[in-house]
């Protein structure tokens, strides 16, 4: 049972239900999902298109709320968080990587990477820490092989480079949890492989990663695979 390992878990989800209204019908997407993620784990959530895996990821990252069920992070129930606490949770504790990168076109790559540090601070706070933030962003870009691209705009980068920049942004505030939603879904095989190598490397360094994918082969790169089908966790597999 998932609950057996709850004591060591950084993130847990219990009995998560989520439904959406599509026209006149109510579509039940998640029908009682239970999941626990341990600190330092690399978990892949696999499922067919429309199985609800992205929805689950958004709920785990406090981008969305479940209709029913409890999500806890370090034993704290996210439903008890105020709006301010949820914003701080998204800013400091979680890093998101999206399939379509979602970089801001108006900012340079470097600015995109240090954006989370900027959004978490007031003007004065930012002025006090901007030196540190810029150095940290340059360091991340260097680690991700994008040092030469720092001053470029996102549209001047390849898909793989954009995704690496997005990973850099997700890591900017040293989050405890990295949530990746189909991070290779928009990339060719070789480039996608490079991104997975980055995630593996991060995980080896102690980063907790939860990745959503529809591709079993990509999921094999994770330490644990969870299959989502018909709105429930159907199958668990540890590498």
């Amino acid at each position, binding site marked *: 049972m998932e609950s057996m390992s709850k004591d060591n878990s950084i993130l847990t989800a219990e009995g998560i239900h989520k439904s959406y209204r599509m026209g006149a019908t109510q579509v039940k*997407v998640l029908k009682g999902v239970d999941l626990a993620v341990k600190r330092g784990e690399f978990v892949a959530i696999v499922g067919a298109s429309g199985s*609800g895996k992205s*929805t689950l990821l958004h709920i785990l990252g406090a981008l969305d709320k479940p209709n029913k069920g409890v999500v806890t992070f370090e034993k704290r129930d996210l439903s008890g968080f105020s709006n301010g606490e949820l914003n701080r949770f998204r800013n400091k504790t979680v890093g998101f990587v999206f399939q379509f990168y*979602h970089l801001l076109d108006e900012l340079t790559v470097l600015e995109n990477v240090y*954006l989370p540090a900027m959004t978490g601070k007031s003007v004065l706070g930012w002025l006090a820490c901007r030196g540190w933030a810029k150095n940290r962003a340059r360091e991340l870009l260097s680690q991700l092989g994008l040092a030469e691209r720092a001053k470029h705009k996102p549209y001047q980068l390849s898909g793989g480079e954009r995704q690496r920049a997005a990973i850099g942004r997700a890591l900017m505030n040293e989050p405890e949890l990295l949530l990746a939603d189909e991070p290779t879904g928009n990339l060719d095989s070789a480039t996608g492989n490079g991104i997975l190598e980055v995630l593996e490397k991060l995980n080896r360094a102690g980063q907790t990663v939860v990745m959503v994918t529809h591709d079993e082969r990509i999921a094999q790169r994770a330490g644990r695979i969870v299959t989502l089908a018909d709105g429930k966790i159907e199958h668990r597999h540890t590498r």
Partner: protein
Amino acid sequence: MYKIILPIRYLLKRRITYFAVIAVALCVFIVLVVLTVMAGLVNEFKQKNHRFAGDCVVGTKSLVGFAYYEDFVEMLQREDFIEGVSPVIKCPALISRRDSEKKKQIEIMGIDPAMHSRATGFAETLHYHKSDAPNAFRPAYDPNLPGCILGIDLELQRDAQSQYSYDASPAPVGFSISCLPLTAKGALAQAGTDVIDTKTFYYSDNAHTGLPKVDGSVVYLPFEQAQQLCMAGAEKRANEIHIRFRPDVTLEQGCSKVEAVWQSFRQQRAGADLAYLLDNVTVQSWKGYRRESIAPMEQEQTVMSVMFGFVAITTVFVVQVVFYMIISHKTKDIGILRSLGVSDFDVLELFCGFALLVGALGSGIGLLAGWAFLVKINRIEDLLFERFGFQLWDRTIYAIGEIPNRVELNVVVAIFLSAIAACLVGALVPSWKAAKQRPVETLQVNLL
């Protein structure tokens, strides 16, 4: 900091934003130019009325006038808040050149030019006697002849540049002025006989008040002679007393004090024979006295302000449309920012900051362009007139010299703030909607 950086980048990178900036700039430009010109015209017109009337007028509309005015003038002259007092005779009359049978209806104003110049801006309106007002009724060609000062439009005509052509000295022309003298009871003097009193006066100067009705119908005569023409009977009477206050006295204070002096005077004269003539006498500030002339101009200004209020509403609408378009293109950014922990209030602030920037830039450009246009407005009008014969106001009809173009700082500040407020109002609804969007929706990912 991102709330400063992102709006600047949006402004520089999104061409659609330029339309919002241009819309705001155009509206600000139009409002500044129209308000400046309209306010200038109204203020100029008020100043001319003030110069014509003095600060305060004690008088009656009755052609009979009121008696004992000399005593009241003496009382006023003893007051320390009074700078000048001038009794005036007013009555309708007919005028004709001595060499012509053609008669024209006029209004006589009987004045003492020295007293009237102290109480009003009369001396400034003269052409030949500007610096010698006390002798204004002495024609240069024969100082012994009884002189008259004609409202400028009675004798001269303006050209298209609003200029009058004066001779080096007044032409030796005599005018016959006829009127019907009235008794203190309002009856025609010498009823049953030839009641029309006619006298000849000689052209000594022109008065140019800038008030078309005055300049086209008023003939100034020496006070005593006008009194003889218009007022029959033993008791001397006047129609009005024009008063100027000392510079440190406000209009309200001065008028209140004159009212008090008048009431005291009335009580003293309560039992006099012609006390009933004092009943219809009123004390009015120059604004009240000239209300019939000023009110339509002020009304016009109000109407223009309301019309340009609609322009401001249009600006709000244009900005709102542009912001809807911008924000609809920026929903992804909102989702990204929300995923990075930005609150809905921060999103609202971000787009309101953007609106502030658009408003400040647009109104800055509009104010600068409006100011530059106003500085050159008369030159531009001259050029248009020289090249195409176009004139904003036909100077042969309207008593307008130069188009007023003095930009008032308070108007500039009010327009600047209003434009920014209009942009904020326009951006508020789309920004609020953007702020309230759920992050997962704005990221446009497949929910399932």
